[in-house]
């Protein structure tokens, strides 16, 4: 049985355990219909031209883990940003782990999607927000919607700021030979509220894992959202991350995507601007080696006047790794005075590494500033010689230049400990010490 058939038959079993009178039941049923019709995307589709899911579909994934698994915190501490105090929503093989988590209902809700989807007190919010910005058309998103059950639920009421950042951590124990996970997150940040979220998917063994994640983020007027995606997984873990963001007037949403690991990673990051004077910030650092593959597909839809978007993706590709950057910007006719910036710079450090980069601008307004630039290059030989002539060995000089290349993307990281951690991962990934405190 191929993966699609397996998923379709699993859906029946999945629904049997659910409350069929709950309105989300209808949403799931609609969603599975869409997936049944469309199936997994193929390379024939323009949006999937450079990323093949063929191999993944041949793997015999467990759709639901057979038993509950436990882990000791000391064994997995390193996957957390443990240097600072945070709220934590932790899942082991897709199942919520209460003893590894620290949730709250103190002024803000940092808790579980399973609770939000079933308990009456959340019904009103679920009715307003759930599956409202996520695509009802894109097959993998609808697949996730069909199986939506568990994930993080974060609700920040008007004028509130949580006491500390929130970490969402998905751990895969490897107790299943191959496991498919479909977390579903919902983040609602009301007027003039703020939140900082760090998300990580981590496999603990070399067993195959496929995660098809959907996150919906709603930023109301004057809301401020920082979302950090740390993708540094094992080489047997694949991730399809579908993130949908709806922004209102004067809100600022920044999404940083740090892609250092995994086998195949596809980031579908979609910003929908539904108001004026807002800013959408999309930043990415990708450092790959071996046969790793990362595909960044971004969309920024400017639907109202006087808004900005800033995209800056940097990639360093070694060995036989491949990268894709496809950045789409739509500026509607009424969205005058839009400022949309997009930059994608890449360094290939191996003859066998590949990057496909494509800006896609659809501009229907006439009074806008849109700039985009893609570069693909090797390291600057003159800069390398300059550093070497100061006594810095070539290997360290290369690392320093690559570090410097990626560095400006980190400028906008607003959690210093996270910035340090990412810097260390970068230094580690580049395999050298850079000679000063990161």
């Amino acid at each position: 049985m191929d993966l699609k058939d397996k998923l379709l038959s699993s859906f029946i079993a999945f629904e049997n355990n659910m409350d069929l009178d709950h309105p989300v039941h209808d949403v799931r049923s609609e969603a599975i219909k869409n997936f049944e019709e469309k199936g997994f995307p193929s390379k024939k589709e323009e949006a999937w031209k450079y990323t093949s899911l063929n191999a993944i579909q041949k793997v015999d994934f467990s759709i639901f883990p057979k038993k509950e698994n436990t882990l000791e915190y000391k064994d997995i501490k390193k996957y957390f940003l443990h240097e600072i105090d945070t709220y934590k929503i932790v899942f082991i093989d897709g199942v919520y782990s209460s003893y590894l988590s620290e949730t709250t209902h103190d002024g803000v809700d940092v808790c579980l999607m399973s609770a939000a989807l079933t308990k009456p007190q959340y019904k009103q919010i679920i009715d307003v927000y759930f599956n409202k910005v996520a695509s009802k058309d894109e097959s993998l998103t609808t697949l996730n919607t069909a199986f939506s059950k568990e994930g993080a639920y974060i609700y920040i009421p008007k004028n509130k700021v949580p006491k500390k950042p929130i970490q969402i951590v998905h751990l895969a124990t490897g107790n299943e030979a191959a496991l498919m996970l479909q977390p579903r997150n919902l983040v609602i940040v009301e007027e003039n509220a703020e939140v900082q979220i760090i998300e990580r998917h981590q496999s603990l063994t070399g067993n195959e894992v496929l995660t098809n994640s959907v996150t919906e983020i709603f930023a109301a007027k004057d809301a401020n959202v920082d979302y950090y995606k740390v993708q540094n997984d094992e080489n047997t873990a694949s991730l399809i991350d579908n993130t949908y963001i709806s922004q209102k007037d004067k809100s600022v949403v920044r999404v940083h995507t740090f892609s250092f690991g995994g086998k195949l990673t596809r980031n579908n990051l979609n910003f929908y601007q539904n108001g004026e004077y807002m800013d959408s910030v999309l930043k990415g650092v990708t450092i790959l080696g071996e046969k790793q593959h990362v595909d960044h597909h971004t969309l920024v839809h400017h639907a109202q006047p006087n808004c900005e978007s800033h995209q800056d993706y940097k990639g360093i590709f070694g060995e036989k790794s491949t990268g894709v950057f496809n950045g789409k910007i739509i500026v509607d006719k009424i969205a005058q005075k839009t400022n949309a910036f997009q930059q994608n710079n890449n360094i290939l450090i191996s003859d066998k590494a590949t990057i496909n980069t494509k800006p896609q601008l659809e501009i229907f307004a006439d009074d806008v500033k849109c700039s985009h630039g893609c570069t693909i290059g090797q390291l600057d030989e003159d800069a390398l010689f300059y550093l070497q002539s100061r006594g810095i060995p070539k290997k360290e000089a290369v690392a320093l230049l690559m570090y410097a290349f990626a560095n400006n993307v980190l400028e906008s990281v607003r959690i210093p400990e996270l910035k340090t951690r990412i810097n260390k991962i970068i230094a580690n990934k580049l395999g050298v010490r850079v000679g000063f405190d990161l």
Partner: protein
Amino acid sequence: MLEIKDLHASIEDKKILNGINLVVNAGEVHAIMGPNGSGKSTLASVIAGKEEFEIKKGSLALDGEDLEELDPEERAHKGIFLSFQYPVEIPGVSVTNFMKTAINASRKARGLEDMPANQMLKLIREKSEMLEIDRKFLSRSLNEGFSGGEKKRNEIFQMAMLEPKLAILDETDSGLDIDALRIVANGVNKLRGKDNAIIVITHYQRLLEYIVPDFVHVLHDGKIVKSGNKELALELEEKGYDWIKQETVV
């Protein structure tokens, strides 16, 4: 200290150096002058070890050790320093962090531990004050957005930090106004000593009024065509390079 014998070097099969002979001893300052395209900067790059230049013939040695097979960083560890004509901009690395990396890399090559942070800061403060460099400047990205003069001053700051045995100053005077020139020259002169040597590459005699050379060499078509003392620089300033070219033809 530095011994160059019949050195021929090319880039992409274009011959640039055609038999350079030069001996620089400890304690000496040599000036190399010459018209554009005579090979001055190439000579500097070849000594520092830039890979794109290929040595076709001849040899260069520092303290009796052949340099040809050494990487630029190994030459730096042996005490060679090149002040670049066009210092490269490195966004994302501050001047301070760059210096820390460079100094500790050299120390590591010599089997020493990293320099303690307080000692490093003291050294940075001392040397930046000597060159009248603003503290704020040190936290800026290396050379990024620096004026021509700031870049050159920063080169000499690096030289002061690294205390090289052999410093090659490639047109360090270009882009400097008279005050900056005096500060830079003063910095260089403070580094002069009986154990080290300096090669000053310049078009103009102006810098040599401040950094007074023991020897002046004229480079033309990749060869040293005339050598003399500091008076030669004055003569060149007065007559230009044409008389040298004519002399060479004869």
